[in-house]
């Protein structure tokens, strides 16, 4: 009875807000995908679409970074089975990035808190207006404030808390300013925190700092194959603040965007070091006595892959589907939002990359999987990009979904034998 009432409430709430979208095949850019793959626009104009999650029935939940009609989560449904999301309903009065589905709940984050919503058998949120707040009061100081989330198989939720600083300088982002000794902000930011997924009203003291030394992680995923957390870190900006060691070009190309497998207690090495993908070494940050060459010998994980600098990896997804060819099975897709910290050089990224995996390790070079989101040949400034890849999700049929937080376009990439 209660369920039924809730469902009715939910349905009626949604009816009020729902709208039918004209079939919008806004293919304003040509997305290049490997031979045998096809790409289509399944929704458009959704808003600042950050991370996405798909239910077993193929419905999509999208977390928005700017409220649309006062709401920050969009639910998309394909009512006639033509593959296009033609129904849209929204709820949640907060902006944010993180969204994840697990064990009958939808988890979503604002830039301060983490919430969950119980789902019915059809994957619909039962109480869209009264989520359970599981974590609150996380640091949000208007820099690296997004709280990405993922769950393991043991009832825990992992939350990224980005550092509210570029490189822990005495004066953030000021030329020549040195690093604060012992970088104190690491006590409450610059790492991954672990909380119970089913316990209400947790704060820092109820959680555990699972891993530290990560400047800002936006893309993260739980690898089911080896039951481990993997993250993509956004490397530091503006090495040109130390012009005696780095010229504009060097700074545009350093440091690497790094991919890690993160064990409990793992340390990414920020802010004391960074990874130079050209010499494949950890280097001491100039703020902490480095000169662009001195190798870092302190504790820090080695990355699995060092990608080109500043491309802003915002989405990470391990592919477990059966639709794509064998090579993709258990490999990692990464959505690169695209750079800004390379000017006056051309900007880079704005694509989805792939890293093949075998036995829990990368088994070959990374490659560009889907490209062309920016829609221009030369990207001088990020404002020129038409679309910017951000979130990734795997559909029940094994297709890959990519969200764009610039125009709110959702792409679906499928393989055809």
């Amino acid at each position, binding site marked *: 009875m209660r369920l039924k009432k809730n469902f009715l409430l939910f349905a009626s709430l949604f009816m009020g807000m729902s709208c039918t979208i004209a079939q919008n095949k806004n293919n304003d850019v040509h997305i290049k995908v490997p031979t045998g793959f096809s790409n289509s626009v399944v929704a458009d104009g959704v808003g*600042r679409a950050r991370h996405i999650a798909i239910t077993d029935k193929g419905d999509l939940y999208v977390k928005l*970074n*700017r409220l649309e009609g006062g709401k920050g989560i969009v639910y998309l449904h394909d009512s006639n089975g033509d593959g296009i999301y033609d129904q849209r309903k929204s709820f949640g009065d907060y902006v944010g990035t993180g969204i994840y589905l697990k064990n009958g709940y939808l988890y979503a984050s604002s830039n301060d808190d983490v919430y969950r919503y119980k789902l019915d058998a059809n994957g619909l949120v039962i109480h869209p207006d009264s989520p359970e707040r599981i974590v609150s009061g996380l640091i949000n100081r*208007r*820099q690296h*404030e997004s709280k990405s989330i993922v769950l393991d198989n043991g009832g825990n939720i992992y939350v990224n808390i980005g550092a509210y600083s570029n490189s822990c300088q005495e*004066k*953030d*982002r*000021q*030329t020549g300013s040195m690093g604060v000794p012992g970088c104190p902000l690491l006590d409450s930011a610059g790492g991954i925190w672990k909380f119970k997924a089913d316990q209400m009203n947790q704060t820092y003291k109820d959680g555990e700092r699972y891993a530290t030394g990560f400047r800002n992680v936006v893309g993260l995923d739980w690898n089911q194959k080896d039951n481990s957390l993997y993250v993509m870190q956004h490397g530091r*900006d*503006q090495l*040109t603040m130390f012009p005696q060691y780095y010229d504009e070009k060097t700074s545009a190309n350093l440091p690497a965007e790094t991919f890690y497998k993160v064990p409990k207690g793992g340390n990414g090495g920020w802010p004391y070091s960074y990874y130079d993908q050209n010499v494949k070494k950890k280097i001491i940050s100039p703020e902490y006595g480095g000169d662009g060459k001195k190798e870092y010998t302190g504790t820090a994980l080695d990355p699995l892959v060092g990608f080109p600098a500043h491309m802003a990896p915002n989405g990470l997804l391990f592919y477990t589907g059966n639709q794509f060819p064998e090579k993709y099975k258990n490999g990692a897709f990464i959505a690169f939002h695209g750079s*800004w*910290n390379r*000017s*006056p050089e051309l900007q880079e990224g704005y694509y989805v990359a792939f890293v093949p995996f075998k036995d829990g390790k990368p088994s070959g070079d990374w490659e560009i999987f889907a490209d062309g989101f920016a829609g221009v040949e030369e990207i*001088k*400034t*990020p*404002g*020129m990009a038409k679309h*910017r890849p951000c979130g990734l999700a795997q559909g029940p049929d094994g297709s890959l979904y990519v969200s764009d937080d*610039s125009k709110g376009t959702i792409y679906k990439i499928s393989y055809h034998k």
Partner: protein
Amino acid sequence: MKYFILSILLGVLIISFSSFRDVIEIKKSAPQQKSTPMTRGKVVYTQYCMPCHQVDGSGVPNLNPPLINTSYVLGSKATLVQILVKGFNKGVEIDGDFYSNPMPAQALSDQQVSDVLTFVRNSFGNKATAVTVAEVKALKSKLK
């Protein structure tokens, strides 16, 4: 959509206008090798502001605001001097967008502040009066 097209057109206009300006600047100043607030301001801009606000002043969506016809750029000189000298971390709203990054205080001389503000106020399609060194000095002394 209309606004989107309009803003693209505006952007193209701004870019062509500002590069056109540069050509004139260089031609004018090359023979006498005389630096102007605009040429000096461009040097300061390139070193200190461009990483965040970008070559064409368009900024970075959601991160660093544009410097194109904003009320700040065209408005009060006192506020502009304050933004540069003290830094800025208020969460400005420009056309409904917020920018989640703090702007650090800029370690610039009064001359450099005057030059870069004059440059920004007369580039990227902006048109506003120059900011003199005397004005910077006077406004800075009121800040403390």
